[in-house]
């Protein structure tokens, strides 16, 4: 039997939490043999019966039993997954891809920059760091989101602060009653205290936002090799045999989705690569 499964493992939804009007976090328990544990940053192909598969990054705390994914409804398959409820069965193939490597920040500052739903793939890395807080110097979380109502994991931010993270949120557009930061997330990067030689930065969000955030971090002196981003391309098989997720020399299901900004920069600067 191949180490790369082609047949989905069956899981049952045991919890469903609406994060925003179009984003849902599902908790899953295995029906069949559970898949190998995810590392933060990895993804699985989630299958909705009769609908299809989509690649979704793990968003739950590593080491806990079961699987947690945060899904935004943007198409037929994600809509089916977002509408599914506790008791329903879905298929899971994975885990695939590279991980954030958060332990590479041991003894150093960890900066996590999230844009929109990009906070979901970063959450496992952050939770892993907070669970071993003494291994890291400063832990800073900078979150950019569209409006206050679009903030995912809003109820956890205070817990993260209590566990020793400096969490700052900015919105592109305020709504009535918001008294926090208003502006692009790169403004938060400009204002935070950065130690250029002892920092690991993890960035996730829309590709434009990641480019801008990585540039802002570079401008503060963080080496491109110490900035990691999570790239996305059309994925079909997840197991490096269909050719869809190519970005230049990389097959993102195997060489990504997490790659260093240093490796990404020459690829992202070519239009339509």
């Amino acid at each position: 039997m191949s180490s790369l499964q082609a047949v989905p493992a069956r899981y049952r939804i045991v919890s469903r939490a609406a994060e925003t009007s179009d984003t849902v976090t599902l908790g899953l328990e295995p029906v069949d043999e559970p898949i190998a544990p995810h590392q933060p940053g990895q993804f699985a192909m989630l299958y909705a019966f009769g609908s299809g598969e989509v690649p979704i990054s793990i968003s739950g705390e590593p080491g806990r039993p079961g699987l947690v994914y945060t899904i935004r409804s943007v198409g037929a398959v994600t809509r089916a997954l977002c509408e599914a409820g506790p008791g329903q069965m879905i298929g899971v193939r994975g885990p695939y891809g590279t991980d954030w490597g958060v332990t590479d920040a041991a003894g150093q500052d960890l900066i996590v920059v999230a844009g929109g739903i990009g906070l979901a793939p970063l959450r496992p890395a952050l939770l892993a760091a907070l669970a071993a807080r003494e291994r890291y110097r400063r832990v800073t979380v900078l979150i950019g989101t569209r409006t206050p109502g679009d903030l995912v994991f809003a109820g956890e931010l205070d817990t993260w602060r209590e566990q020793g993270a400096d969490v700052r949120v900015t919105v592109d557009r305020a709504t009535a009653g918001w008294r926090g930061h208003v502006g692009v997330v790169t403004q938060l990067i400009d204002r935070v205290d950065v130690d250029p030689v002892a920092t690991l930065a993890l960035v996730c969000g829309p590709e434009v936002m990641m480019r801008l955030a990585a540039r802002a971090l570079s401008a503060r002196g963080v080496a491109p090799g110490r900035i990691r981003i999570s790239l996305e391309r059309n994925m079909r098989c997840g197991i490096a045999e269909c050719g869809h997720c190519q970005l230049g020399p990389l097959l993102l299901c195997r060489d990504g989705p997490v790659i260093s900004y240093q490796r990404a920069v020459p690829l992202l600067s070519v239009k339509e690569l």
Partner: protein
Amino acid sequence: MDGPIPGDGPLLMEAAALDSLLEALRGAGYRVIGPTVRDRAIILDELGSAGDLPFGWGVSLEPGGYRIRRRDDSAAFGHSAGPQSWKQFLHPPRQKVWSAHRTAGGFEVEAADEPAPRLAFFGVRPCDLRAIQIQDQVLGRGEHAGSRYAARRAGVFIVAVNCTEPGATCFCASMDTGPQAGPGYDLALTEMAGEGTHRFLIDVGSPAGAGMLAGVPVRRADNATAGSARSAVAGAADQMGRLMPADILHDLMAGSESAARWDDVASRCLTCGNCTMACPTCFCTTVEDVTDLSGDHAERWQLWDSCFDLDFSHLHGGPVRSSPRSRYRQWLTHKLGTWHDQFGSSGCVGCGRCIVWCPVGIDLTEEVAALQAEAGQAQNSPTAPPHAQTGGEL
């Protein structure tokens, strides 16, 4: 006679004995696939007998042109660049991956486990043999060692045919894949069809190959005949219609991202994807999830796909590679360049099919020469433009 041993020197077989070899293969449980004439082309299909081979048929090849023609001799393998390659048997165009059906508690999934057919490939050109090995690397090794491709591949018996007469669009010599077959065959034939004689020099490449000749009338080849066959193959290397600078291709492709030549080829390319269908190493697939009308039964099918298809790079409401320029660039830079980074070899074997089967006759050797010239000019020009920068203007 005693069973031949691999490496013990070539053998000789009369063309009349081909049926004996085919029967030996069938007797061993193989379905024999080989070239045959159909619909005014030489295609690959199951051979009922040696008579199905395209004796006396050759081809006229040019960019965007393929015609079969009558040869002066009765050679069975005097042709190349047919519309199909062996990949359709190892990596089928449509395969069911799994099926699933609804149950009270959810659904159940069954992998589609068809037993791998026992196939004998009869008439594999050296370029196509290398192409099979390239696909082995992509689809059948490492983490793919347990894949269905690997299962199909494990059972295949390969009778290669060395080339003595390259097609007008061939360039296997440049890509170091021919005209002599490299290791990986069970038997390799070199055809000698002349006045009054029609026979094959046979090289044994494996114990299975040796065993298959047990009941076939073969004799030790004399030095003169063997020498004549060898030099015919070696001579073919000097008759190639095209050349490729294989050793600089990876770096040339890597540096070509903003080349003007891509606009030139894009003005001709129809993005029809014929090249990807005909190419023996192109392997990209997509998956299709389908249900029946009741919605209770679902199947996942794997289908050939092409990077020329607009949907191939679909992301967030649109394709990443939208322009024909970007799609042609993706195909060529992958085939000749980033394939090295991903799989450790070139993706091109010099078979020339993409040249022949392109409806507008785009010739990748010509495109490479133009890219090389453009890169050379850029290097020598004192006003060479800097690499494209992302903007910072107002």
